[in-house]
């Protein structure tokens, strides 16, 4: 992995669209409280490029399909200070012309929420795995280098197949076993406005700890950064381990604690973690992955003793 960028945070925020006001314009002020709109073309959608002044160069790794060779292409486009990588890629789709002037296929990539809650748009940006929607252009060193997440089978360009992640979640049984999706009481028309279900009690402190883990959006950044996680390896990776930590703490999930621990005590489990700590550094949601791994280490030790001596 290449070294991380030093973020280039600007000390001053420039206002977009710095069209200078002609001298004496202030003297044109009419008596009325409001200056009415002078024309209707301020709502012209073709005016959208207003405020985009900076030319930004992207270096994007392309690959037409899983079986062909990758290659690089350079693109230059106008960006405003508020642009993020997804916004830029979306604009690039409309007219994908390389710096050499060649019109090429639009870059294929995955994105959906653009609010950093769905996890779809994770990719390598200047050598770092991160969601592209929250990667602001102005904080990135140029040329901005975009590559697909490693460790996953490549589909095309920046699109990868993250199915392994979900298979690993199955492997560690990252769920709470419930009897069924129906209400335990108060079927249609019978709830009567009071909560008849027994409410689980969870302390605010435990809630706060669990909440951190419940926000994992399976973006795959931690797996991209983990030196132990790779195709052809069994290691389930930090994301699935953190879910074991979460499910084992849940009041009902506790019942299957032992089963989940056994799942990570063998091959591909906890002992495959090399303690590189990369995962926690790149997690966009600041999930304390290494804390979870540490806690699981103690839990599996206790479980191993139990298995040995009964308990």
């Amino acid at each position, binding site marked *: 992995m290449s070294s991380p960028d030093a973020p280039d945070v600007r000390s001053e925020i420039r206002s977009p669209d710095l069209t200078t006001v002609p001298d004496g314009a202030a003297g044109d002020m009419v008596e009325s409280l409001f200056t009415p*709109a002078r024309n209707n073309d301020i709502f012209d959608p073709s005016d959208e490029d207003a405020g985009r002044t900076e030319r930004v160069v992207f270096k994007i790794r392309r690959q037409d399909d899983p079986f062909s060779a990758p290659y690089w292409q350079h693109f230059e486009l106008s960006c405003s200070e508020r642009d993020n990588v997804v916004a830029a890629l979306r604009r690039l789709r409309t007219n994908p012309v390389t710096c050499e002037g060649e019109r090429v296929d*639009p870059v294929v990539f995955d994105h959906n929420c653009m609010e950093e809650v769905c996890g779809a748009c994770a990719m390598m940006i200047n050598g770092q795995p991160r969601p592209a929607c929250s990667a602001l252009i102005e904080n990135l060193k140029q040329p901005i280098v975009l590559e697909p997440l490693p460790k996953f089978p490549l*589909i095309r360009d920046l*699109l990868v197949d993250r199915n392994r992640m979900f298979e690993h979640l*199955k492997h560690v049984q990252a769920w709470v076993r419930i009897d069924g999706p129906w209400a335990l009481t108060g079927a*249609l*028309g019978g709830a009567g406005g009071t909560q008849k*279900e027994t409410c689980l009690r969870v302390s605010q402190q435990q809630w706060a700890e669990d909440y951190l883990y419940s926000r994992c959006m399976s973006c795959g950044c931690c797996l991209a950064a983990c030196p132990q996680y790779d195709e052809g390896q069994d290691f389930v990776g930090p994301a699935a381990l953190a879910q074991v930590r979460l499910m084992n703490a849940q009041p009902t999930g506790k019942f299957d604690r032992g089963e989940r621990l056994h799942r990570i005590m063998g091959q591909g489990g906890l002992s495959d973690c090399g303690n590189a700590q990369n995962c926690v550094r790149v997690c966009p949601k600041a999930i304390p992955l290494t804390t979870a791994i540490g806690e699981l280490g103690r839990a599996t030790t206790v479980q191993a003793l139990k298995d040995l001596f009964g308990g």
Partner: protein
Amino acid sequence: MNARSVIVVGGGLGGLLASLRIAASGHRVQLFSLFEVMRSHSVCAQGGINAVLNTKGEGDSVEQHIFDTIKGGSYLANQPPIKSLCEDAPGLIGTFERMGVAFSRTPEGTLDQRLFGGVKNRRTCFAGASTGQQLLYSLDQQVRRLETEKQIEKFEWWEFLAIVKDPNGRCRGIVAMNLRSLEVRAFRADAVVLATGGFGQIYSPKTTCSTNSTGAAASRVFQQGARFANAEFFQFHPTAMIGDDKTRLMSEAARGEGGRIWVPRQAHDRREPLAIPEAERFYFLEEWYPSFGNTVPRDLASRAIWKVTREMGLGVAGRDQVYLDLTHLDSHQVETRLGAILSIYRKFSGVDPLSTPMTIFPAAHYSMGGLWVDFEKDANTGGLRANSLRNHATSIPGLYACGECDYAYHGANRLGANSLLSAAFSGRVAGEAVSAYVSGLEQSVESDSHAAFDAEIRYQNQINHHFIHADGEENPYDLHRRLGSMMMDSVGVVRDNSKLNETVATLVELEQAFARLKLGEANPWANQTLAYARQVFDMVKLAQVVAASALARDECRGAHHKPSFEDPAPEHSQAGHKDFEAFRQRWKDNNQKWLKTTIADYHPDGPRIGYEPVDTSLIAPEEPRDYR
């Protein structure tokens, strides 16, 4: 019981809960999604989910929740489904909690609840600032468990293209396209549930919705004969941060905590906002609505911002934006109370709202309208009849719809924190209904002839062929941009008949532009432009329904606002007063004429608009909305 097979399209809150419910009834589920289901737009819901638990000693009641929902929707929603929605909410919360949702807690360790817009009691359960994400993940985990038990089979990266009907017009499966190989394949099923979400993308980029909230799937079944209802009712959120890719929601809490909305008094004022003295700022909400000030309800705020930018030309820097200013507030307090908002704004704009006013504009947020669905009323309870196969059935036999893509619960405007509730509840009900339907079928789809399936595959392949080989000059991204800007202009916050007439005509031209398309992408593998171009086409078809429905409804109701037909409550007059009672009478007369569901039927020349009565059997429309 014979195990049947059901296809569920869409893996958000509604689709996943429907899948779980169908599997629990012993039927096989095939779940289709454009992407990994956990990326569905349900993850974006931040605020919470309503359920009357009455945990705060405020005497909250299910009756009050029902009333708030009905009145919030300007009486336009059928009331029996709402009754069951509100009665079932506590049980749903219990279900989610059992699945492991990290709902926020009180010091006693019980469920915490908070206040939300438009209501007086603390009724909203929440999970930090990511309630939708938490609810969706819990269902995603349960579905994954049932995958390992072979009760649910997932088809992610498949796009729904059409339903397949048998000679009797019953839905017997779907045709879908593999988004990697572009293979078009038919899948048989005894019934189909559509849970494909809303259609904010027809207003792109001024929408808070995800890129996949296109409404394309709903549009496709509409074009195949499913009726569409109340399409003109679209909620616009007044305060979304400006963005080129999308506009991101800045919660109402920002105004609640003392944020002030303003524009420079002088158009095109180029000064930095904080360099503009108080006297040269126009705090228009405070001037126009002295009693409410900045905390006016969503739709009034949206319309005021619309007026000041579009009609008076006072948008900041001459563009579609106004300031939402927190800089005068105590920064420590704002940081504690509005942390989630501040971090979103900083993250996506690089600007700190504590030192620079935010720039915001209204954005398309939620579609109250959607596919028309049936319900069966229980004569004893006045709510839904449990397990009736009519609940959530579309007008095509064997096709069901739930979640934001149906029209059922929100009438003319949605109550805050009722969206996660209706998505979950309708998913459960649709799951129960479709299970009842397939259990009663005489013949499994397996014995159907393959002729209808083959014909639909051929037809869909022809469309793909046309799109791929079209050699015109129109680019789908550009067509989408034109669509979004036109819809926002004339079928947005404020509507006007002459403009709507123009838009209806322009939308036909936009549809015809697809004959002159050029995809500009040759690679047949994981070709995203083809799928996108097809979605944009179906968005245009859906936009035609929205525009035609808006044109036909000559009144103001909820989110649908036509100034020419406005009749506000008289100033300085209360109930019992002569002026007010005259206003009430006018409002009732208007209800005689317009309190009815808009129904759109597909027709090749354009949608046909008709109406059907609303079931107001629980609460008669006596109280006009009064926000003075």
